[in-house]
């Protein structure tokens, strides 16, 4: 077991002001509002905490609004996240959390693609492979320790 924290003193960024939704929701009962970048970013930033610190991924700039790409028509979403440190062994956990959160929040028709930002991690390729391999993700989610850790990160915050 690793003792101590991987990144003891992460940089905290102030939360960006939310883009206000301009399309008022009540105008047309039957108009569809496709899932968009902001909605997915809200899903990810509000409830996922860093595994080591009580900060949200938004505050640590692990995920930004621009790092989410979504296409509602083809049901595809890609999230690119930036670990706080190059050798961060928590990157897998963060990636797994993002995947689990999206799996639980998006309709089943979606294909989810999780990536580490190019050049932000030492074992980038391995990590990308690991996070997008269905079997390995399924296996990981059968490991009770990992599931507990993931659930811990996904506890709803008070905000």
């Amino acid at each position, binding site marked *: 077991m690793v003792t101590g924290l991987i990144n003891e003193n992460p940089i905290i960024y102030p939360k960006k002001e939310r883009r206000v*939704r301009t399309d008022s*929701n009540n105008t047309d009962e039957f*108009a569809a509002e496709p899932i968009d970048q902001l909605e997915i970013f809200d*899903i990810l930033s509000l409830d996922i905490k860093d595994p080591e610190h009580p900060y949200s991924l938004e505050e640590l700039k692990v995920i930004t609004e621009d790092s989410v790409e979504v296409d509602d028509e083809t049901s595809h979403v890609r999230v690119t996240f930036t670990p706080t440190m190059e050798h961060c062994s928590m990157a897998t956990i963060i990636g797994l959390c993002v995947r689990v959160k999206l799996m*639980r929040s998006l*309709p089943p028709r979606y294909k989810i693609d999780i990536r580490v930002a190019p050049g932000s991690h030492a074992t980038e390729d391995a990590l990308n492979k690991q996070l997008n391999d269905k079997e390995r993700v399924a296996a990981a989610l059968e490991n009770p320790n990992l599931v507990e850790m993931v659930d811990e990160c996904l506890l*709803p915050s008070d905000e």
Partner: protein
Amino acid sequence: MVEPNQLTQHLETFVDITRSPTQQDDSLRRIASSLENDTLSINQLVREMEMYLTTTDDVVRARGILLLAEILNSLKQKPLDNAIVHSLIGFFTEKLADWRAVRGALVGCLALLKRKNVAGVDVLAIAKAMIQNVQVQSFALLERKLCFELLECLLQHHSEAIITMGNLLVYATCEAIDGEKDPQCLMVVFHLIELLAQLFPSPSGPVASDASDIFDSIACYFPLHFTHTKGDEASITREDLSRGLLRAFSSTPFFEPYAIPLLLEKLSSSLTVAKVDSLKCLKDCAMKYGVYRMKKHYGVLWSALKDEFYSSTGTQLSFALESLTSPGFEMNEIHREAVNLLQTLVNQDISFLGFVVDDIHINTVFDTISRHSQYKEMPDTSKLDVLVISQILSVSAKASVKSCNIIFQTVFFRLMNILGIVEIVSTGDVFPKGNSTVSTRLYHGGLHLCIELLRASKDLILDFEEYSPTPGCAQESWCSIVKSFSFPLIQVFTSAVRCSNNDCAEDVYFGVKGLLAMGMFWGGSSPLSRSEFEKILMTLTSIITAKSAKTVVWELALRALVCIGSFIDRYHDSDKVMSYMSIVVENLVSLASSSQCGLPYAMLLEATSEVCSTGPEHVEKMVQGFEEAFCSSLSDFYVTGNFKSIDNCSQLLKCLTNKLLPRVAEIDGLEKLLVHFAISMWNQIESCGVFSCDFNCREFVEAAMTSMGQVVGIALVESQNSIFQKAYSVISSSILPAMESIPLTFAALEGLQRDLSKRDELILSLFASVMIAASPAASIPDAKSLIHLFLVSLLKGYIPAAQALGSMVNKLSSGSGGTNISSDCSLEEACDIIFHADFALEKKISSNGSGPSGKIICASETTLSKICLGLCGSVDLQTRAITGLAWIGKGLLMRGDKRVNEIAQVLVECLKSSNRSGHALHPSAMKHSADAFFILMSDSEVCLNRKFHAVIRPLYKQWFFSSTVPILESLIMNSETPLSRTMLHVALAHVISNVPLTVILDNTKKLHPLILEGLSVLSVDSSEKETLFSLLLVLSGTLTDTKGQQSASDNAHIIIECLVKLTSYPYLMVVRETAIQCLVALLELPHRRIYPFRRKVLQAIVKALDDRKQRVRKEAIRCRQAWVSITT
């Protein structure tokens, strides 16, 4: 009264610690009361108690002494002999050394010291014993508190006696308070320090010599950190403690060498609380310690203060409407305290200003200003410089007249030079440039600084005028400086306002703000001449009347005018009132009444109403102007048929309703003006003939009805009567005779159509709105004919008539002949006309309609109800009658009249698939009677509410609920056709969703199955989506309350089934959203009840994750997370 053996018993009770506290208190009270009424003397008591007071048993002795002390404490009012007091003090003083009985001794001493007749010797004895024998910090909390209170009492009430103790006293106090931690004790401790400081003010006294020690003992509490929010009953807050500490700090100038360095040090801390407290404390200390002592700290103080200004100011300068009258950036608490401190320092000693004026930053700020023209182009550091320096200079200028003079002398010329207003000639003389050569160098930083200085001097005049009645500012040098520049300044601001580029929104903002600042100089000592003031008003007014679209500058100018207007009104500046009236108010009002203006009418009205609401005279002017405008527009419409005129009328009325009516309570005399307006509305309508063209003027009629109703609603009863008279004379000369001639026979009624002319319809609607809004005390002329009129018109399909009829039956006084002289018709008579009347019954119907319950003449037997039941007449007539009946029923229901039951019966009868005469009902009639229950139960905005003086009986909804629900329930059970079943459910849903939730919660067991069935019946199609939603809200209310949860738990399976179905209800998003929220709320139920449904719920929620609405998806995510996590 107390016998010796009884006394012994009481004594025993108190001393015995195994007895309950209430028993002990009781015996204490009894002994005290017998002392109070002299059946027992102190001497007797002490003799009786001797054994308890002197025994060697520690517990008994402590209790005994405490008893005696408590008795003395409760006898505060009773005079005692000097000798007795003396000997008691002797006793208690001795006992102070007895640590086991110290509590009693302290209470006793405290009780005795609070008496008037205590000899100095005795006080001294107590004080000495206290100092020698009592180790305060070794006691428990209660005793410590008593010790401090004793000291407080000594210092506060017996200072002459103990002043001789000098050093000893100070030393003992310091020792006692050292290390105290309890908040309640600390409150006393801080006061002790204050008292000590007051007692020994001399520089050679003990406080002066021991200042360092005393200060050390309290310095450790600063800055005060206290996070308990509540708890003990004393409930001391951090603010209390911190205020106490601040007072202790500033209690004596001898603390100065220790306090100021400490405070300056804490000021540099990063904790907000520490900064705020330090600034507050520095302010108090500066005032208390005096100029002489503070002088040596000025240098350090200034630099610390400047740092605070810099760190507490942001670089965001707001260009919003709201910040026209504020510095324009956000101020936190630190900033506010820093402002206070700076102002105090400058005010107290003008020499502090030297540090400010000579500061290097202030001298470089002019370079900064002249480097960048646009605010947004400045780098952040320059922005900060400009904002902070402006703030510092304006705060210092505001501090006193002297400081204002100095600041203007040092800064203003340079500022004017930068703005291009003056030239500095090589000889050093300065003079304003001529009018023509004002350059357009609009440096934003400079404008900001200039405006802040002007605003500061304006505030200074106001402060000054409040204290001294004579206008003295005019001779001050700052005033003459402003005076000499006022003309070019106004020109600069005006040219900024007139800037027409697209990217000069900020120029315009500064221009308006500058004009506003110039326009707010007060009265006689104003540096502005009257013509200059008028020029400002003209500039602003011309902006408003010139712009044809709602631009930023338009709104800014309007806001500025409103500010100036309310400023003038507040300070009663008679000269300016006249200028404002003639330039702004009359100008706008005349434009509004002539409507010959490029400005859209709505904007013109908005501007006029905003500007005029600043003072009562302006309001009067405006209402008169509006009255004229209304009359001329309306007659113009009648003559020329100009649609624009009638549109203007509607807008005018809307403006009146929205802007003026809500302020009736604030503005004196507005009620009279509005009543006058209402009467001239009637006059105008009376004098106008028929509409020259057929124009659908729905909007105008509605606006007129709302205004008329609201005006009548706020008017006094006498004014209501005069409006009634006028309205009645109009209506009786037009439609009343025609309507009265329609007999109430089926033959006549059947042929009714909506056949009133537009004018008649307008008159009818207006009259109805007068009736709706009238108070029960108003007298209704010719009520019987009016009832006839309304009855016929409601059958013709005019809803306002039905509402007016409902209001009439709600407000008419009951009792035959009318106990109320104001009306010629009683409730009974009215009901007779409505229900029985002289309808000529046709034979075949009466034979058909005689049901089994023919013994009394009830409403279901009357003609109106026969029309409702469809026994005669067309479907149209039937639905109109049903709606009319609902409004009448509402009026009766609200006053708690039993006749509403009969109406309910008729309505219920209409919901059956076939009524008892076997007559099938039309679906539309059924729908109308189901909706009639909504009319009956819901709160209406348009009539029968408090605003319109309705008679409202408490709990009427509950009453109707309990009488109706069982009937509807049994009918639902026995309903024969699906349509009837649906309609019965709609009616039930209306009743359930309009009754207070607590009533539902008391009956959840019975209601849950009904509600759920209703939800599933209503969710079949989209026609009842609103009703479905309100019923769902009731369900969600029962699920979130603990009272409803038992029944929810019993019905969990059907509730979940129903909610799951509603999560995909396609017609209304809020229904889906609420259904999902309800599913989350269900998780509060016992695990074993809900776990079996987990699969089912999750399946439904996964579908909801793909909902087309974002809000539903958001709830679905939350719900899914919650249901997933109940696995184990």
